[in-house]
Structure formats: structure tokens, C-alpha cells
């Protein structure tokens, strides 16, 4: 089945929903002496929206390019629909990619760009079939009537949509998106994010997105694969990554967090107590794989810390150092004698209730014990 690349094969081949669309099995890739990807293991589920998230050079693009067939793994297996495709050239793989630069063919019209993949199908579809599918794809990306336009006549956002249409018109098993929104301005990016998500849901195509923008990954994905230095650090839903990060790296990369370094003093099941350098202790939920004596840190999300104007049990006295208005939130930088500088995010409602603080004000911070996560400090 994989020998003849049949775009549009999704409909017939969906049969076994439990079978992963694509898999990476112990995949490594080195360029000369540089290891770009190490021992990647991942299975991509039918119909999901998966993101590779990480800073530049973390191996996320390499992983995507191995799925597309532009790079061959040095070790391990890439499977698509259950079959090993390591040696299958990209033009035989039932996957399509939206390139970061869009890579639209400048000498072809919009319609010719979109029809390009359809025209390679065997048996060759008729002219009418092609033009009907092209129009439908253009309608899907809200560019109906743009068939005859030239690429350079289109704005960045429109080019982005054409690139998207050119890929989805083939109904690939897997749609790969390499930082597709990076070149757009913030407002347009937001719009396109929503459209991408709608598109993915209505088409039912599996999307694999590469991004360095954690906000984008959090808002779009069903699952996020966080990468660092060529390795997969954690795979999980946005919520899991945010609420239960496996390491300090993930907690730091996905969202912002306050970290308090120390070592684990005692552990009871999931609960553990961390002893800070100055001897004070902090309790919290412990990430798996940690044991007593390990160097670890407590991670506290800024929005899970409450800023109060009166002392209560277990509250830490602080001085407000700075206040930044962020619209729906206000970010406070406070300083505690015992904990150092702490970032607190207060919702607007709190401010309306009259608990607003200015630079130099005295206040107290508290948090619920289950909001504190104890993580391995690996940096």
C-alpha cells in the first residue's frame, strides 16, 4: 500500500482507530558529529493535534523532517500506518507539509499551486475533478475566488492559507506544520491559530505542529511533546504539562514558574518535603522518580500564589517591589526575606475587590500545598 502513494487514502485506511498514524521508534539522527535527535519514541494517534515544542536546535524540526522524508534516521524506525518508511522517499509518503517559508511555487498561480499534488496522483484525476477540489480547498481556507492570483500578489496571511490549502487538498494521513505561523504578526497569528484548530477538527486529519511558542502549543494541541537537546523530555496534554511538569525544564518552558531550590528531606507516597538552603521546609506533590536526598526544587505557578493584606497561618511576609499591569492580570514582583524574589499573578477581580498593592507595600503570600510541585533540578 505504501509503494504507491495514494493521497486521499485516509478514508479507506482509517479502519483500525487504535493503530497509531505514525510512530518514531528509538529514532536518532546525527549530522556529522552533531546529534540532532536522540532515541525519540513517540506514537502519533489518528486525528490528534500534536505539537513538538522546544527552543531552536532542540531537534523538533529534525523530527518533523524525518516524518516528511527529508531526513533519514541514523538509527531506529519511522513508521507511517504501521509500515517502516525509513527508505521511502518523501514523494511516496502519504504526508504533506506546510513549510515555514510556505515554499509556494512563484511561477504558478494559486490554483496551479494547489493542484500540484493532485496532478501527481495515479490514476490522474480529470481536469474537472482537480478544479473542483482546488475550489473546495480554497473555500475551506476562506480564499474562494483566488484561483487565478499570482503568489506575489498575496499578503503573508493569504500565502499561509494557500500553503495550507495546497497541503490539505491531498487529504494526507499526516499534516506536518513547520512553524507555520512564525512569520505572521500577532493578531493574524491568533486568528490563524483558531482557524487551524477548526480545520483540524472538521477535516479529522492528524496535525503535527512544530513550534517554539509555548502559548501556541498550549492553545492548539491535544498533546505536546516537549523537546530539549535532541531528546523528548515529556509528552502530555497541555494541562498535564502545565499542572504536572516532569522536570524543572518543562515547568520553566511551559508557562512561568517560581522555583525554590533545595533537597528532598522526606517523602511519603506522592507527598514530599523539600528542605531549602536556609533550613526552612516546603511541602508539595513530588514528581515521579525522585527520592530522599535528591537535589530538587519546588515549582509554584505565579497565579497559584495569593497576595493578601493580612497575615494568616503559614503566610510569608513580603514587600512589593514592582507591579506590571497586563490587562486581565496584574503581575507583582515581591520580595520575601526567606524565599527571595517571587512572581505573583493576581487576577483583575482581586484588584476590584480592593486588594491592590503599590510599590513598597507590605503584604503576605500564601498558596495551597497541592499547588507546589517538587521537581528534579537538572539545570
Amino acid at each position, binding site marked *: 500500500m505504501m509503494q504507491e502513494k495514494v493521497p486521499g487514502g485516509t478514508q479507506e485506511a482509517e479502519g483500525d482507530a487504535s493503530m497509531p498514524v505514525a510512530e518514531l521508534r528509538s529514532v536518532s539522527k546525527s549530522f556529522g558529529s552533531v546529534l540532532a535527535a536522540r532515541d525519540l519514541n513517540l506514537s502519533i494517534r489518528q486525528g490528534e493535534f500534536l505539537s513538538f515544542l522546544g527552543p531552536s536546535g532542540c531537534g523538533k524540526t529534525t523530527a518533523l523532517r524525518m516524518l516528511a522524508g*527529508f531526513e533519514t534516521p541514523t538509527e531506529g524506525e519511522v513508521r507511517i500506518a504501521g509500515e517502516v518508511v525509513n527508505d521511502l522517499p*518523501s*514523494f511516496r509518503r502519504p504526508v504533506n*507539509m506546510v513549510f*515555514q517559508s510556505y515554499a509556494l*511555487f512563484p511561477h504558478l498561480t494559486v490554483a496551479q499551486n494547489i493542484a500540484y499534488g493532485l496532478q*501527481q496522483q495515479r490514476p490522474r484525476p480529470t481536469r474537472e475533478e482537480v478544479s473542483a477540489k482546488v475550489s473546495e480547498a480554497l473555500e475551506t481556507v476562506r480564499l474562494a475566488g483566488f484561483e487565478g492570483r499570482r503568489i506575489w500578489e498575496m499578503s503573508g496571511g493569504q500565502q499561509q492559507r494557500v500553503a495550507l490549502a495546497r497541503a490539505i487538498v*491531498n487529504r494526507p494521513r499526516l499534516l506536518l506544520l513547520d512553524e507555520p505561523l512564525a512569520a505572521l504578526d500577532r493578531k493574524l497569528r491568533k486568528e490563524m491559530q483558531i482557524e487551524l484548530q477548526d480545520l483540524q477538527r472538521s477535516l479529522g486529519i492528524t496535525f503535527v505542529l512544530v513550534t517554539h511558542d509555548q502559548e501556541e502549543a498550549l492553545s492548539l494541541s491535544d498533546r505536546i511533546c516537549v523537546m530539549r537537546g535532541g531528546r523528548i523530555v515529556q509528552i502530555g496534554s497541555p494541562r498535564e504539562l502545565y499542572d504536572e511538569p516532569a522536570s524543572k525544564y518543562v515547568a520553566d518552558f511551559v508557562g512561568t514558574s517560581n522555583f525554590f531550590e533545595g533537597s528532598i528531606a522526606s517523602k511519603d507516597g506522592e507527598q514530599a518535603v523539600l528542605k531549602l538552603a536556609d533550613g526552612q521546609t516546603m511541602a508539595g506533590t513530588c514528581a515521579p522518580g525522585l527520592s530522599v536526598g535528591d537535589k530538587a526544587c519546588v515549582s509554584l505557578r505565579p497565579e497559584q500564589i495569593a497576595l493578601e493584606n493580612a497575615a494568616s497561618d503559614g503566610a510569608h511576609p513580603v514587600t512589593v517591589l514592582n507591579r506590571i499591569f497586563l490587562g486581565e492580570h496584574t503581575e507583582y514582583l515581591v520580595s520575601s526575606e526567606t524565599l527571595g524574589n517571587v512572581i505573583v499573578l493576581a487576577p483583575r477581580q482581586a484588584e476590584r475587590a480592593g486588594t491592590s498593592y503599590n510599590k513598597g507595600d507590605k503584604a503576605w503570600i500564601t498558596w495551597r500545598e497541592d499547588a507546589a510541585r517538587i521537581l528534579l533540578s537538572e539545570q
Partner: protein
Amino acid sequence: MRIYAFCVYLFLYTPIGIIALFSFNAGRHASQFQGFSVKWYGRALNNPFVMEALENSLMIAFTSAALASIIGTMAAVGLHSMRGPVRAIFDAVIYIAIMIPGIVIGIATLIALVTVFDVVNPWLAGLWADAEAAPQFSMGRGSVIAAHTMFTMALVVVIVRARLSTVEGALMEASADLYAPPWVTFRRITLPLIAPAIFAGFLLAFTFSFDDFIIAFFVAGSETTLPIYIFSSIRRGVTPEINAIGTMVMAASLILLIVAQLILRRDKKT
């Protein structure tokens, strides 16, 4: 500084201007202008020797430029996907081919061809039952075409390579991603994008071959190209007829060069 530049241009272009001017001379002496006339153009175009040489030159220029465009483009595309020392060596060799003086190429090609013919011709004669009827290689149009193709191919490679380097690599990947096998990618994406450069290369190769005297002189054998005809006529004295031929050759070459430049420049903008 301005006067200096003016003098340089004067020095460069006065002889050419005089040739063009005297080609319209009504009199038959090169040194005295005796009124305007285009009769020498008519005379030149009616001269069977001139026409034969012109036909040879056009045929040689067209064939060698076409061959150079095809082979040069293939070489450029091949080199483009190469990396490392192989590519560096080939690049160097191609630039050297352009910088080597024509006379060296002429002599080298002559020696190489004579050597090859000396080996191949007796061998061919041996293959045929009747040695007299066996095909034999000799100097002529073929050898001039071969020599010109070899040299002008380097020009085409350089021009096409320059264009290829501006074509985004992701376009080829996108084509492969859209199920196009390498050949289809070449035909539908790469070739249309580099076509202006290939055409410009063809025009330059044509001009070069059409104007070339040195290499052709060495390897043409008994064949006469237009520059060779001009050279041999000059030995009998410069006539207005020669001036007319020279002016026509110059005009044709200039037009081709300008067209090639326009294509390359417009190409850069898009």
C-alpha cells in the same frame, strides 16, 4: 578625473566608431570619407564567400550554444546538489576554464583533437572492409563546435549556478512533498525557475562563438567562419566592405548581449 575617464572611453570607442562610420563611406578608400552610402553593405551581403562564412558561423554558434546550454545546465544542476570538496574542485575547474586565454584553449584543443584523430581514424579504417570508404574524423565545423561548446559551457554553468543559488531549496522539498518524483520536480519547478538564466547563457554562448576568432582559427581546418574570413581579407587591405561586415557583427553581438543582460536583470527583480 572626468577628463581622464573621457579619454579612456575615447581611446576605446574611437576605432570602433571609425569602422562603423567608414562602413557608410561611398568611396573605396578607408582613409577618405567621400559621402554617405550603404552600398558596401549590399556588396558584403552579395559576396558568396561572406555568406558562406556567415552561414558557417551561425550554424556553429547555434549548435555549440545549444549544446553548451544543455550540458552546462545539467552540470550546474548536478553541482548544485553536491557538497564539500568535489563541488569546490569542480567550481575551481570551471572558473579556470573561463580565465584561460583563448589561444591556449585553441592550441590545446588542436593538439588533443589531432591526437585523438590519429588514434581513431586508423582504427575506424580497420573496421571497414573498404578502408577508403571508412568515415574519417577531420578538422572542420565539428571540431569548432566541440571546442566552442567546451568553452562556452563554463559560461552557462556559472550563470545557471548563480540563478540556482537564489532558488529556495524548500521549493524542491515542497514539490517532493506533493508527490512529485525528482524528474517531475526538475521539469515543473527547477527548469521554469532557471529558464531565464539558461536562455541568457545561451545568448552569451552564441555571441562568444559567433565572435570567436582564436579558437576557431586553430581548429577550423579548411572551414571558414566569419571572423576567419575577416582576418584573411584584412591581409589584402581594409576595405569598406570589411568595415560593413564588422559593423554588422558588432551590432548583432551587442543586441544579443543586451538582451541577455536584460533577461538576467529582470530575473533578479522577481
